[in-house]
């Protein structure tokens, strides 16, 4: 066993241990904090799997933005009475058996995957030149399977509508609740002032290098989103009213531009969602730029939740 093997095994044990602790923790807040730590550990696992793009996404969205969402929820739900009765022993045993069965079946399936493994890596690489990109993961997301990515952006729009839709009727068009206390800590305000401009530069840079190196629209957009969240937590700015026209345009700009470029495909490249030869890379970066904007706006709004104040208050 090499040193790396030992480290991998230790990492695996810690990930599983933190996950189990998250489940077992009585206090909801502790469970959520455990989950955030778990997400960061998972990002290291992704690095070990040679998946830096995924590691960045997991750290920023899976752990970071989701963490903010869950921490906020757990503090608001903390003082509620326990809802339903805890399950009986019979259910616990049945659930445990079922879970062990699923884990066993899954582990067996994974262990006996056929060798040599099937792979689209060479195929993806062969078409890479036509896109002008260097990062194959970005090529899959924005070129080969762009149809999936465009539809997934529509899913995000529906998620925003769904979150807004739980608002009381009278608040429709108003602002979501503030993300921080009325008098935020001076340290947080300082951080927001210093970090936000740097973060925006880093976010844009991450999208830009994503064409050839790890990074891309999702990761860059997530960093922009994080910056906006921090600024809102420091109360330097407030969540915008959901009726605002520019906000709605920014939210749909990513999927809308993507869809329009896709529809133009038959005229440019002979196929829906095709890119014309020789002009693929600029077009891809154009689409991605709007995706960064959309993601940067969508994630904070999903964290901010439904409107809870009347417009203009």
């Amino acid at each position, binding site marked *: 066993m090499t040193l790396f093997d030992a480290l991998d095994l230790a990492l695996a044990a810690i990930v599983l241990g933190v996950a189990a602790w998250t489940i077992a923790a009585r206090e909801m807040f502790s469970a959520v904090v455990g989950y955030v730590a778990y997400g960061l550990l998972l990002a290291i696992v992704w690095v070990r799997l040679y998946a830096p793009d995924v590691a960045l996404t997991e750290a920023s969205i899976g752990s970071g933005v989701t963490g903010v969402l869950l921490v906020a929820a757990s503090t608001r739900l903390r003082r509620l009475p326990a809802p339903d009765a805890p399950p009986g022993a019979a259910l616990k045993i049945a659930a445990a058996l079922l879970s062990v069965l699923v884990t066993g079946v899954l582990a067996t399936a994974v262990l006996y995957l056929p060798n040599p493994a099937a792979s689209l890596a060479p195929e993806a690489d062969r078409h890479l030149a036509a896109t002008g990109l260097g990062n194959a993961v970005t090529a899959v997301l924005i070129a080969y399977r762009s149809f999936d990515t465009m539809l997934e952006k529509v899913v995000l*729009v529906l998620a925003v509508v769904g979150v807004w839709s*739980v608002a009381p009727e009278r608040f429709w068009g108003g602002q979501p609740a503030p993300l921080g206390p009325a008098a935020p800590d001076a340290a947080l305000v300082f951080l927001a002032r210093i970090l936000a401009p740097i973060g925006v530069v880093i976010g844009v840079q991450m999208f830009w290098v994503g064409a050839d190196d790890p990074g891309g629209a999702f990761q860059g957009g997530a960093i922009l989103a994080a910056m906006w969240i921090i600024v809102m937590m420091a109360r330097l700015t407030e969540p915008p009213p959901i009726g605002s026209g520019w906000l*709605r345009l920014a939210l749909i700009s990513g999927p809308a531009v993507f869809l329009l470029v896709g529809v133009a495909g038959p005229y440019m*490249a002979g196929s*829906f969602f095709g890119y014309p030869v020789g002009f693929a890379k600029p077009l891809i970066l154009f689409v991605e730029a709007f995706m960064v904007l959309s993601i940067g706006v969508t994630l904070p709004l999903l964290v901010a939740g439904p409107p809870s104040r009347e417009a203009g208050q």
Partner: protein
Amino acid sequence: MTAAETTTQGGALLVLAILLPSAGILASFALGSRAAERIALGSAPIALVIALAVLAEVWRAGRPIVYTVAGLSPPLGIALRADGVSAVMLLASALIVPASGLYARAGFASPPGGGESRKAFTFWIMLQGISAALAIVFVSGDLFNLYVALELLTFAAVPLACVEGRAETFAAALRYLLFALFGSIFYLLGAALLYGAFGTLDIALLAERIRPIPAVTAAAALMTAGLLAKTALFPLHLWLPPAHANAPAPASAVLSGLVVKGSFFLTVRLWFYVLPGLPAIGFDAILGALGSAAVVFGSVLALRQPRLKLLVAYSTIAQIGYLFLIFPLGSGLHSWTADGWNGGVMQVLAHAFAKAAMFLAAGLLYESLGHDKIAKFSGAARAMPMTFLTLGLGGLSLMGLPPSGGFAAKWLLLRASIASGQWFWALVLIVGGLLAAGYMYRILAPALTSNAISLKAPPRRAGEAIALTLAVVAVALGFAPESFFQLLDIGRPALMTAGPP
């Protein structure tokens, strides 16, 4: 391996069927609730024309039509494929969604004077979300693309269940969401295993490459479990009655008539299109048995419900049960599998129209009476004859009495079960029909008495006409000509595997 698949004539229609409602969602979001209503209803005729064109093209070609998105063939690219069943389902969705939309205009109008309404904004966007998701479900040939469609369906359906904004609707929607998320993540897990084993998620390529290895069995079990949770097949049905019964009537019509069929359709795709090469391992009998249990359990609970909408929701659980008889009766290469297959598809269609009609009728009753308590229905049929005619015609199809789509479906399934010697399923069909007659009697008997009843408001004529039209379609399906079943045969997988390998 066969040569890379390319776009066929008319394949572009499949992309348009998906992009039309997707673009509608984005435009509606930007322009607000009033425009959303106009866009949702205005695009409906176009969607109908596209669905009819797909149907005509499949019929003309006599084989599935294909579009390879971005000009890339699978495995690297995504292929869309429509066979006979896809075309028929696309058409059903293009009829039922706008019917519910037209019915909903009264309840989901935007306030006069340019303001925006939360309910209208949510409803009209989510209605288009369901159209988009179902279009992908019916025509996509790629399991990951279908995962995105499943999520689209979830995100559109859950807010519809709680658009009324009462506490109990939020509880129902939350439960629905948790079940749906469990369902899609298990589906995705299965997809991961299939990709790991065969390096593709394209349905046609997987069907060629599939071999009986542990990953395939595990994937089949995990994906099926996930899809059953989304379809609300017994015993994973707990979320359905509160979600469907507490949603506004036009939303219930779409949720019960169409949305649960989306995940059922994927279960069929999985077992008949991806896994037919897999030796029988008893899954079809298990699915049939669960379906049978659902028929009995759902019907018995429907008999005990005090409210009409809850009764209709529990009846959905029972009717979903019948769908799963397609697995033991429609699979394999036997003389009777065509009957089993046609019966299963017919049941999907008949239930979609009948149940949508009944939920709309239940909504009209609620509006006019101010409640939907069955015990207080006496004399209502005289005051609202059209509404009860709709309930009666829908019930006819649910019971499986001739002439109706439900009768045609059950007759075909019955024939298949007798021809195959699987008499047990025949018993389920008969018992289910009797129980359905029981719960229909509970609704109609008090209503048909001659007591006087006072209505809060007369029923909306337009609403009644829409509901009745849907019920009439459910009945008319019973007169489907032979060519309809020939259409269903186009691209039917049992026929494809019967050819040379």
